């Protein structure tokens, strides 16, 4: 029983740890957390759909070390990211920034959503209009009498 609890504890406490080598980890836990945070948003330029936090590539390793060195030297997170962007372009950011060249990327889904909403509204509005147009004019007195007669089945 005790062993079972032990095993469960070990299994449940194991989270994804990325590709970070224990030797890279900074002593200062705050700086290390910041380094991990930056690494998760930086694309590995060798294996392009991984972040450098996940990648085993040697260049990703060197980038992680570089990020840690820059943080230790007193750079802010933004300064570190800006340095990498100045070398590799916006492409290194896994989340592309919002600017003129990415307007279609960020605005596109919104635009399509609005178009869909507009189409939906116009569809319902037209349907309602068609229903009211198709409704027959109300019966006049004579017609109503005829109808009643027919329903009663008793001509009088």
């Amino acid at each position: 029983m005790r062993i079972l609890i032990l095993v469960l504890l070990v299994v449940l406490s194991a989270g994804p740890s990325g590709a970070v080598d224990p030797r890279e980890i900074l002593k200062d836990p705050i700086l290390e957390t910041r380094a991990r945070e930056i690494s998760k948003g930086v694309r590995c330029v060798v294996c392009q759909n991984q972040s450098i936090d996940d990648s085993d590539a040697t260049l990703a390793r060197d980038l992680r070390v570089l990020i840690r060195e820059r943080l230790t030297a007193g750079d802010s997170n933004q300064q570190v990211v800006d340095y990498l962007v100045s070398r590799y372009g916006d492409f290194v950011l896994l989340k592309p920034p919002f600017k003129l060249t990415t307007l279609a990327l960020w605005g596109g889904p919104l635009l399509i959503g609005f178009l869909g909403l507009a189409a939906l509204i116009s569809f319902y509005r037209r349907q309602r209009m068609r229903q009211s147009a198709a409704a027959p004019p109300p019966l006049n007195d004579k017609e109503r009498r005829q109808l009643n007669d027919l329903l009663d089945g008793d001509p009088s």
Partner: protein
Amino acid sequence: MNNRVLFVMPLVVFLVLAGYFAVGLTLDPKKLPNMLAGKPVPDFALKPIKGRDDKGFASADLKKSVSLVNIFGSWCVACQVEHPFLMELKATSDVPIHGIDWREVDPDAGPAWLKKKGDPYALVGDDPRSRAAIAFGVTGAPETFLVDAEGVVRYKVVGPINKALWDDTLKPLIDKLRQGGAS
């Protein structure tokens, strides 16, 4: 009228998607923009590799003449393909080629490679921790940068350079830079 619009809608959607794919699928995701184009070379100062008793290779060395900076490594297969052409360039052209020996696990590997195959480089710097490579925005070897006499990066080649690329692109650019520098 309205039905007709609905009727051609699938065709329109198809054409738009086909247009996106026609452009998108021909793009090479490995080709990153050259962020350094028109900018001065990054600051770097690399130690010499073993067996070369020069002073290594630093950014100041690039402010003398139009030159090429070639990032290579003894581990890199494409560099082996490129190497004979660099030797040919050394023999036939007066443009100095500088090398950055990138990420050698064994510090003897780069020098041994050059000794065995020939050394096309004027200056070579050792970059075991990718410092210069990252500063240049390198994603893989080989990459070659064309740098003008003021030390400004003018062009970047990803992958091996060969005769066709030299004749069609690099040589004309170099001639133009040299004329511009003379005036």
